[in-house]
């Protein structure tokens, strides 16, 4: 069982003339087994929240805290957070030239587990996971994200999540840019991990489409750097029908 607690989180980014506040007091708790959806307009700070949880150096926490089972996450380095069980599927995965997917996956697995995976079972595990995500085995020999299409990059993110088996996974717009088949395949990947582990999921999305495959327990409306409203799955349907106008008006 794991609990990720975000308390009164304020985050700024450094710009030319000082700090620009983006997150203005976020409170959110994600427990093992729960699925939380975060929906909100462009620029409201959803990715900022995701990157701040992962520890990207661009984001400066000016107030508040992030705790994983009571441990101060903000004091951990990026890699320590991942080894503590957190995972971020990125909105824009990064190309790493010259590093093959298979080498990358093995290195990451070794780091997360603290020991190299048994060669025989590992190769099979990777192969099975790739098959399930309809990724050609050829991807294992390609360089990380290099020349991957948008949809291939997203599948590759989910592949990593399934193999690294985090306690808390943050998925930043994993559904964006996916065609209907890919959306289903990627959602099945998330559901597989939910089915065979206790992963807690924080799912950032603009569309209710993915929520038909991955059922959220909670939906949060993110506006202007904070959670403006929360509810159950029915809130997502309301947002789809009404948009964010109601919240935008009150945020100003």
């Amino acid at each position, binding site marked *: 069982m794991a609990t990720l607690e975000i308390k009164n989180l304020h985050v700024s980014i450094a710009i030319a003339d000082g700090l620009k506040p983006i997150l203005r007091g976020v409170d959110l708790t994600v427990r093992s087994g729960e699925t939380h959806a975060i929906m909100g307009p462009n620029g409201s700070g959803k990715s900022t929240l995701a990157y701040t949880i992962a520890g990207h150096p661009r984001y400066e926490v000016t107030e508040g805290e992030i705790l994983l089972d009571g441990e101060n996450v903000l004091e951990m380095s990026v*890699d320590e957070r991942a*080894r503590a069980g957190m995972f971020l599927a990125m909105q824009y995965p*990064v190309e790493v030239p*010259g590093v093959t997917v298979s080498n990358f996956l093995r*290195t990451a697995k070794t*780091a997360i587990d603290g020991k190299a995976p048994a060669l025989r079972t590992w190769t099979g595990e990777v192969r099975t996971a790739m098959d399930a995500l309809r990724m050609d085995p050829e991807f294992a020999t390609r360089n990380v994200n290099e020349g991957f299409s948008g949809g291939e990059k997203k599948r590759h993110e989910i592949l990593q999540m399934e193999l690294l088996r985090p306690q808390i996974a943050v998925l930043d717009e994993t559904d964006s840019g996916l065609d209907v088949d890919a959306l289903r395949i990627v959602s099945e990947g998330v559901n597989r991990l939910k089915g065979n582990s206790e992963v807690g999921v924080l799912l950032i999305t603009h569309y209710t489409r993915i929520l038909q495959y991955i059922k959220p327990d909670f939906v949060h409306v993110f506006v202007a750097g904070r959670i403006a409203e929360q509810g159950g799955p029915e809130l997502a349907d309301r947002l789809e029908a009404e948009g964010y106008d109601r919240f935008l008006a009150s945020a100003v």
Partner: protein
Amino acid sequence: MTTDLTTDHTRATADGAHTHGAPGVGVVPEASRASRFASFDLAEFPAVTGAEEEWRFSPVDRLQHLISGAATGAVSVDVTPAQGVTVTVTDRDGASTPGVAGVPNDQLAATAWIAAAQRTQVTVGAEVETDAETTVVVRGEAGAPAASAHLLLTAEHHSKALVVIDHVGGGELAQTVEIDVHDGAHLTVVSIQDWDRGAVHGSSHRARLGRDATLKHIVVSLGGDVVRVTVDGEFTQPGSSLESLGLYYADAGQHLEHRLFVDHAVPRCTSRVTYKGALQGESARSVWIGDVLIRKAAEGTDTYELNRNLVLTPGARADSVPNLEIETGEIEGAGHASATGRFDDEQLFYLKARGIPEDVARRLVVRGFFAELIQQIGVPAVEDRLQTAIEAELELTGL
């Protein structure tokens, strides 16, 4: 025939440690590579001032013995030939020794030419095909008088062979490496500068390619205090191909310089130049100059040159100057790319976000930076050796 000029600057990063194209202030610009002075006789060259295009990046003071004709000592040259490869050592006659490939076009090349007392000739017999390595070990001695050496590598027609020149030890060496690839021959030449610290090495590689000849020329510079290698490739007949690869890893205080010149003077030849370097440590320095000249007669030329530098720590500096001169529009393709970058923070973040510790992530990126180039070498023994050398370099900075 199509005219397809591509000049890829898109990936060149803006970086303080990167110059591109135009010469800097106070430098006499050169009209064309075609007009550079060349002679077998050092006496015909003016003295080096350091401001010349070919010297402006070099530590001229440390190369003094190698550009003034003073390098009259000798180094040991041991050849272990593969089957079908012969070795002959002959006495030379200074400036009047007949040249096989090219003409010295700077004072260092001319010094090497007048000062070497002997020539070591390695000949791959006609139609001999061998995968076995012919090894040439050039060993210098620290504290010995500055030396000159002359190596002539000849691949007779329709032969196929691999020659690895290994430079080890110390001292100062001015060197000529003539490479003569006859019609239909495939020759791979690997020159590894694995000197001890303190060594100073200037080398003029001059290659001449016959009809349908293929030369794979690989330069690896790891050791020594100053290494300056010029590589001139000259096509004499149509249909031949030059692949020129280079890898360097400059540590604190090292100056590693590579100057390429590919002269497309005849139709339908192909050249590919790929050099990659990493730099780490205070005042680690690399220079890469890539001159490609496509002369009027060289219709159907296909050429691309690329240089990438990875600056691993502050205080290191990489200069990269690609230069493409095109005198005919009737070519297949011509392009160049040059970029100097630091560790990419986003790449490191991505790797670390998967639990990979910073030092391991950095190693992955550096290995990855060189991986593609190493794969292109195609000689397993050399590839393994390079992997090992890169691991050793990574150890050095505690990466």
